[in-house]
């Protein structure tokens, strides 16, 4: 049985842990609000962009002269997986669930006899995948320096990916990130960015004049489309990370509270037992006289 002193120390240490997790939870809540705002702000751009791209792509997609970013290389052999995770841990299953999705994806591809290359964004995903897939890593983008995710960060990632595509390093690119649904639910998602896929909105088609030509616009916009999708994914990821951290820290705080309660009961009982013991000793000592 632990001594009273030990128990006291234990309670004090759990208490300070609870303080830390509580603080982290509040910081995550504040950051989550900011991340959600940023995601909200970016939505009009992404939605409009995709709508225009969808109509452009459906018009030009069928032709043989369609850009390679849209039509693909005609092959399906080398896959690039862009795995986007957080730079920091302590956010529940956030990083590992993205890594898990990427891993199962990679395993399926390898079983089909395809080549897998992995580009990681964020330190945690790199660490999670290093053991099994380390030999597939081609590059890493470090975002730990960025305080807020800006479009510049997305452009950086997109430029890297596009450069590799132009150099013929891969045929298909897929990004992995976590879609933010709510504070308690983040869904790891895989999204193909090259060749580009746009959901047909099916909206009433207006006949547009294009200036310059349709092909030129498409060629100009497709690379931007990659950056836009990466940006949207990064923002979703940022919100998801904070959401996951918030609920993980909420759990931790609650667990620490439970633990303190349990320890306090044990502490009180053993204190009582000690007092009783001492009394018995005194009384039996007195009786012996």
């Amino acid at each position: 049985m632990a001594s009273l002193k030990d128990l006291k120390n234990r309670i004090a240490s759990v208490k300070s842990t609870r303080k830390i997790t509580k603080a982290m939870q509040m910081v995550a809540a504040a950051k989550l609000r900011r991340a959600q705002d940023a995601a909200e702000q970016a939505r009009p751009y992404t939605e409009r962009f995709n709508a225009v791209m969808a109509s452009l792509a459906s018009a030009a997609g069928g032709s043989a002269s369609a850009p390679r970013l849209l039509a693909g290389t005609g092959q399906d052999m080398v896959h690039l997986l862009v795995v986007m995770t957080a730079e920091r841990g302590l956010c529940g299953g956030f990083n590992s669930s993205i890594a898990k999705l990427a891993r199962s994806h990679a395993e399926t591809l390898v079983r089909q006899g395809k080549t897998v290359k992995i580009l990681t964004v964020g330190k945690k995903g790199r660490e999670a995948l290093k053991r099994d897939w380390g030999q597939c890593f081609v590059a890493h983008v470090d975002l730990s320096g960025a305080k807020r995710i800006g479009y510049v960060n997305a452009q950086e990632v997109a430029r890297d990916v596009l450069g590799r595509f132009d150099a013929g390093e891969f045929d298909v690119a897929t990004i992995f990130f976590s879609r933010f649904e709510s504070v308690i639910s983040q869904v790891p998602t895989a999204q193909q960015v090259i060749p580009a896929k746009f959901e047909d909105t099916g909206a009433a088609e207006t006949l547009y004049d294009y200036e310059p030509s349709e092909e030129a616009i498409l060629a100009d916009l497709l690379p931007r489309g990659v950056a836009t999708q990466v940006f949207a994914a990064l923002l979703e990821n940022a919100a998801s990370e904070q959401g996951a951290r918030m609920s993980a820290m909420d759990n931790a705080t609650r667990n620490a509270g439970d633990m303190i309660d349990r320890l306090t009961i044990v502490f009180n009982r053993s204190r009582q037992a000690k007092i009783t013991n001492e009394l018995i000793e005194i009384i039996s000592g007195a009786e012996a006289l």
Partner: protein
Amino acid sequence: MADTVQFDLVSPERRLASVQAREVQIPGADGDMTAMADHAPTITTLRPGVLRVVHAGGTDDYVVSGGFAEITAASVSVLAEQALPKGEVTQALFDGMLAEARAAASAAEAGSVDVAAKTLADMLAMGEQIGLSGRV
């Protein structure tokens, strides 16, 4: 007949403007154009330049670079990769943009040299228009 159009200017990071505009002057890739109500539906890419919006409350100037504009009879949506109110563009910021364009121009490979050079030239012209110098 409505004589205003719904004008939206969005960049990836935020929505800069959403007003009823009388006319919008757009720096299109093939030349400037002014969009007013009942303009033919058009999609055009942008070159770096100054976008001017005339609305009931006055005139707003924005500096945009890259992106595209979608014009319909009742609305003008400009999706700019980079967009700032003119007043927020400082010499330092402009120098940064210019340096990036210069780097791109010097790093451009055969085939994209013209494009990069044009971007740089557009950038310099834009600087002159808003009163910032493009000297190194």
